[in-house]
């Protein structure tokens, strides 16, 4: 049974999340503060950690905990869960090695879907790819099962949200995907400017591999399009 650690200072949310995840068949352990969680992680690593950024008195306790957890294990999937949704927090969280970032607006089914996807990704990372799960668009290869993206044969390190956005765009090249469609496909509820910064981050990741990358076109007033 997979073991999920929830580090969250709000008891009601902690209880609700653990109930929901238990219903999905996971084993759940909960911690209300950073030292307690860290002590537990030292004795036994969870299979996935759900971490709130603000932990009690520690405003950035979640960030600190992520750094400490990453030091203990490079592969444990970590999802940030926070009331904050500023770009700064998202970027900081992802840079510290979190695999995904969700605001607390996300519904429990969404959360469960993400957790399942992350497990699938880490599980299948080393298994041979099955051709039916591969989407190929020129130099872009998307493995829908393992949720990985490759550009010109090189791995693009995308978060789940980013992967789903790229997937939504690349599945129908040339079609304009508006912001609502992207949000639906990436199962996130954010506002327009957050979509914009997500797209910006995706572009930057591709540009780091290929300075000539220009496949994601902005169609002002409508949305985005994957160019062939």
């Amino acid at each position, binding site marked *: 049974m997979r073991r999920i650690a929830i580090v969250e200072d*709000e008891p*009601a*949310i902690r209880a*609700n*999340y653990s*109930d*929901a995840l238990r*219903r999905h068949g996971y084993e759940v352990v909960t911690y209300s503060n950073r030292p307690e969680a860290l002590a537990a992680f030292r004795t036994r690593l969870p299979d996935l950690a759900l971490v709130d950024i603000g932990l009690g008195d520690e405003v950035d306790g979640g960030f600190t905990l992520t750094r400490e957890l990453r030091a203990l294990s490079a592969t444990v999937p970590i999802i940030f869960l926070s*009331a*904050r*949704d*500023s*770009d*700064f927090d998202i970027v900081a969280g992802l840079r510290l090695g979190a695999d995904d970032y969700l*605001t*607390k*607006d996300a*519904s*429990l*089914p969404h959360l469960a879907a993400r957790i399942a996807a992350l497990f699938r990704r880490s599980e299948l990372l080393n298994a041979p790819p099955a051709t039916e799960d591969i989407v190929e668009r020129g130099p872009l290869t998307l493995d829908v099962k393992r949720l990985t993206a490759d550009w010109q044969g090189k791995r693009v390190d995308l978060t789940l949200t980013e992967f789903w956005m790229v997937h939504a765009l690349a599945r129908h090249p040339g079609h304009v995907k*508006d912001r609502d469609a992207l949000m639906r496909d990436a199962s996130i*509820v*954010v*506002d*327009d*400017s*957050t979509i*914009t*910064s997500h797209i910006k981050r995706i572009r930057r990741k591709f540009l780091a591999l290929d300075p000539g990358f220009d496949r994601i076109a*902005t*169609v*002002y*007033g*409508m*949305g985005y399009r994957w160019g062939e």
Partner: protein
Amino acid sequence: MKLPRIALSIRAQLLLVLTVFLALPWLGVEYVRELERVLRDAQERTLAGTAQAVATALHDRARLFATPPDPIASFARERADDRAPNGASLPPSASPEIAQIIAGLSRTTARIWVIDREGTVLARAGSLRPPSTPPPAESAWARIGRATMGRLYKAFLDQPSDDFSDDAATLGAPRGRDVEGALAGILTTDRRPTSDGRAVIVSAAHPVWVGDQVRGVVVAEETGNAVLAERNRAFERLFNIVLAVLLIGSLALTAYATWLSGRIRRLRDDAERAIDEQGRMRAPLASSGAGDEIGDLSRSFSSVLARLAEYASYQEKMASRLSHELRTPIAVVRSSLDNLKASSLPAESRVYMARAQEGLTRLTQILTRMTEAARLEQSLCDVEPVRFDLVPVVTGCVEGFRLVAPGAHIAYAAPAESVFVQGAPDLVAQMLDKLMANAVEFAAGAAIVVRLELDGPAVRIVVDNDGPLLPTGMEGRLFESMVSVRPSGDAKEPHLGLGLYIVRVIAQFHGGEASAANKPDGTGVVVTVTLPRATE
């Protein structure tokens, strides 16, 4: 009753106050008049004294008055006087003895007569005209003064003149009121103008007693010129001083008032500059270090504005803070509802479940909107401006809206050429999104016109829609955070009054500005965003 308000600058007010000093010349005039009166009295007393002194020397010397007058000699003398030029030397005296006595008493500017009861001149000494002396050497200043102020004074002050016609010298012995009084035995003084009116002659007559009979009269005469000259000199000096004081005083006061009103004006300008038309703090007011009331005013202005700025930023940040605080309880409600949904619910409870989730969705939407502005402001810090063509961005947005809102009639006009702007196309698209959403909502199916207009170094994005007008006075405030003019009805979407605030923030980021106004014909509203064009 309301009095009309007169706008007077501080300078004008102080100058008005200065008119109080105009009482000074009046006081001076009164003083000089008093001085003149005293001088005249003194002159009369002196003349009376002279007449008395002469008379004292002649009292009880009946012999001197015994000689009958010689009409022929008198006539001859008068003829001689006629021929003689004005101010001629003394005519021969009818009584040499008396002439001898009074010769010692003659003064330079006084004339003494001794006449008998019949009015026959027994003796005469002195002249009314002073001996002519060359004018004293004048300094350059005095000359300038005489040329300017002197002329002015001459215009309204009586000037003493030695060029008068002396009646007595030509017509013989004086026969004034004073002589009659003296003949009646009383010391009498008199003043009379000369026949040509150019001078006043002051005279005193004293009776000469022989026994208890008045046998003759001593008359002492003098012109009023000396007094007049003295008075004029006093006048001139007084006026010079008063004028100088007034001039220096008004110059000093004007300078002071200029300085004072300059400071106040500077304060006013600073205070006006501190807040822009939309009531947003531009720059804090530098408080003055001056210790006076204007310094105090400047400091209290500064602190008021600082508090206003704090309040404004509090108001702008409140939305994001509030949304942050609300997220956690909403997460509790949402996760509880999600858990509840997962358990088997009776059918009648499902309705309430659906409603609760609908409400929650709306609440989340509100929170998202609330943070949008704050997030936008935050993200502006790390936007790297690029040079981009505005036309395809606006065109794309308009076309996008035509798709999203098929019921809206959107007309669109843009220049054929490229219009380059320095900034972020994403942000401009976001701004247009807000503008269009507003217009579509207010137009409610009526016509919307979007125009891209070139205006010299700037480009205007004009969104013009038919529909309800803006309430008066709201044109400037519309672009503030959390200000909405929508009727609070059962709107499907929450309205927080942040849309146009976002428009303003983005316009300002691009160095432009946003404004809203009712159309002149009253059919709707025009929102204009002016952006500077990028240089080549």
